[in-house]
């Protein structure tokens, strides 16, 4: 026969303070666990939505990021003639020659960071994420103008419409603010690549991005590049995958740190739960003896205490997840290790985060409550009633 659920619930009310403290401890652990998962997922999401599945990025082989990649003009021109590059109605390659560089700008809350300035070709607008100008206007090709991503305007000073930035021996004016479907491009400044080249007196680009033809696949492209003497210094990659890889270092760091901490925390929380449950058992010896004398079996006692422990943990889990969901209102802007430029991302709460957190709290409740529950079950009726 099972012990009435009502009995189990009443115990929470009887010892409000200690129950509350234990639930609080578990809630904190679950909060940290969920927050870390949400951060890592937020980074991945921003970069995974950067670019398009239909695009291919060409970078120099040993470069670690766009700012360390160099492609000279003859090679760029050669690549634009390859068969995988889709052409538009006029027969021009749907390809953008990008020049990526970095400027320093002051953050609103102190310190400075690296901002990516991306010079693009006119085609960039057609092949990438939908770029929408939300304020001001698009820059004019042929002039020293910039548009700034909305994510940057929130975090940085001196990059609003009308501000002038000095680099490449000239002053560039910000004329518009852009949105880019919450992708990594929202953390960049864009301008005309030819102007960028002129300013720096270089005839090389950082990367090339083109729309591939429908029958092209990356593996064939990679083999072709590796086999061609003129092209084996460079490598093609799916645009989405390229940017996702740029976030790998950051994500890995956050995950390693976060999971290590959470594992350590969870041991602490389980111990907290164990302490509470042991005390609960110790205090209710007479009750347990009475219940046994009334005819409830050992298993029922075990289950009753386990359930109590699990409910404690689940309540803590719900509170922790609830608090973590508030994080979605915040965005973080930081230096992405992979690209060495600033990146803004949100905390992203997905169903896997929620289910992961709840399972985590369930496990904490089970493990923390098991031994005390066992102790309660193994008590002999006589010693309990004494």
């Amino acid at each position: 026969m099972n012990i009435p659920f009502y009995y189990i619930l009443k115990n929470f009310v009887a010892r409000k303070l200690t129950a509350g403290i234990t639930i609080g401890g578990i809630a904190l652990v679950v909060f940290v666990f969920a927050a870390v998962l949400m951060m890592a997922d937020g980074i991945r999401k921003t970069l995974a939505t950067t670019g398009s599945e239909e695009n291919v990025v060409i970078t120099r082989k040993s470069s670690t990021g766009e700012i360390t990649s160099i492609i000279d003009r003859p090679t760029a021109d050669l690549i634009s003639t390859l068969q995988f590059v889709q052409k538009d109605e006029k027969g021009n390659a749907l390809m953008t020659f990008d020049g990526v560089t970095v400027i320093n700008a002051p953050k609103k809350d102190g310190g400075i960071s690296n901002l990516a300035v991306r010079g693009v070709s006119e085609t960039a607008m057609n092949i990438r994420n939908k770029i929408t100008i939300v304020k001001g206007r698009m820059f004019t090709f042929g002039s020293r103008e910039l548009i700034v991503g909305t994510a940057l305007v929130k975090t940085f000073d001196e990059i609003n419409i009308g501000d002038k930035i000095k680099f490449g021996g000239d002053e560039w004016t910000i004329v518009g603010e852009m949105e880019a479907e919450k992708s990594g491009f929202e953390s960049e400044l864009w301008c005309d690549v030819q102007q960028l080249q002129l300013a720096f007196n270089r005839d090389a680009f950082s990367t090339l991005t083109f729309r591939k033809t429908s029958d092209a696949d990356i593996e064939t492209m990679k083999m072709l590049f590796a086999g061609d003497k003129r092209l084996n210094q460079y490598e093609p990659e799916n645009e989405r995958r390229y940017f996702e890889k740029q976030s790998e270092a950051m994500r890995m760091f956050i995950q390693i740190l976060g999971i290590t901490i959470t594992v350590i925390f969870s041991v602490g929380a389980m111990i907290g739960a164990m302490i509470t449950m042991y005390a609960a058992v110790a205090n209710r010896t007479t009750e347990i003896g009475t219940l046994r004398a009334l005819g409830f079996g050992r298993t029922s006692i075990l289950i009753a205490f386990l359930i109590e422990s699990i409910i404690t943990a689940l309540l803590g889990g719900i509170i922790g997840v609830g608090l973590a969901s508030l994080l979605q209102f915040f965005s973080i802007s930081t230096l992405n290790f992979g690209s060495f430029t600033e990146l803004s991302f949100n905390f992203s709460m997905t169903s896997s985060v929620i289910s992961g957190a709840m399972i985590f709290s369930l496990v904490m409740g089970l493990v923390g409550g098991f031994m005390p529950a066992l102790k309660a079950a193994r008590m002999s009726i006589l010693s309990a009633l004494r």
Partner: protein
Amino acid sequence: MSMTKLIVKNAFRHTLRVLLTIIGISVAVVAFGMLRTVVTAWNSGVAASSPNRLIVRQAVSFIFPLPYAYKEKIASIPGVSTVSWLNWFGGTYIDKDQFFARQGCDPETLLSLYPEFKLTSSEITAFKSDRSACIVGIETAKRYGLNIGDIMNMEGDIYPGSWQFTVRGIYTPRSKTDDATQMFFHWEYLNERMKQDDPTRADQVGYYVVKINDPSRSAEISQKIDQLFKNSAAETKTETEGQFQQGFVSSSGAIIGAINIMSYLIIGIILLVLCNTMIMTSRERTREYAVLKSLGFTGGHLFAFIAGEALTISFLGAGIGIALLIPIVQGFEALLPRGWFPVFIIETSTYVLAGSSAVIVGVIAAIIPLYRALTMKIVDGLRFTG
């Protein structure tokens, strides 16, 4: 029986519970210590900065070079004792996952600017006289099994092509907090190659490192240097090495902030765990406290009993936690990609913080039970059955 003996004996009355509490606290101390170690590792560059080194970099971003011609002008400023320079090389050594700084330098002045890198005089002579020579820090040498005379092959990215350097010296750091992983080669070697491969990039350095005689004049000298090059094609920004390093740290400010918040949450968890135990313990001892009060023990004595017990537990927990921290930090370092944090040690401040939080937590955890013990009427206490 002395008070201390009573306190300690009391503490261990419920062996299992106390043991669990101590483990819980030690676990939280480990987590706290680890997070702090990560934050201090991040700041190690700032900590290792010298007040008499100034960094002169391109004003727009330090990824842009400065003309070699600036050297003489900077040297002419009163207060400047030595002008040296460095040039970030980057490149790939073995594969993209091997992180350590690789820079071109001026062998004549490098060691006078950086006395923390120690070499034997024969190593110094060998380094200076071989144009293709390089020196590496002992950590890097150990990691890759490099000895004097070995060749390091690198694939350049910012400076494309294949490069070979001969190891002519392995430096040891002056102290544990100095970076022992860097690699330096002759800037002349890089420059000569540029004169052949890409003359537009010749005679340029990455950034200047300037030694000044009087650290108190750093702001004044910095301004003078920047004044020299104002309105030129390559304007400079001069700041102390500490400020320069702080710039890097602040660009990751958001992540560091999040880690700091987590550390405080952990202290909160420790507090909850200990509070929980103390409240339960003192509730059980209500009758005893009533007896003590009726015997004439004052509030001060009760405070000593309760706080003493709490402090005993928290100190034991902190002590075990600190002892465990050392191997766990080493384990964590092994999990991270090699070379991410050149300096990753547990600093004295971390030990001190862990210890003092144990004290504070012990005292706070004693407050609720103490309050209850002090305000309870002796009669109610004697009647208490739990």
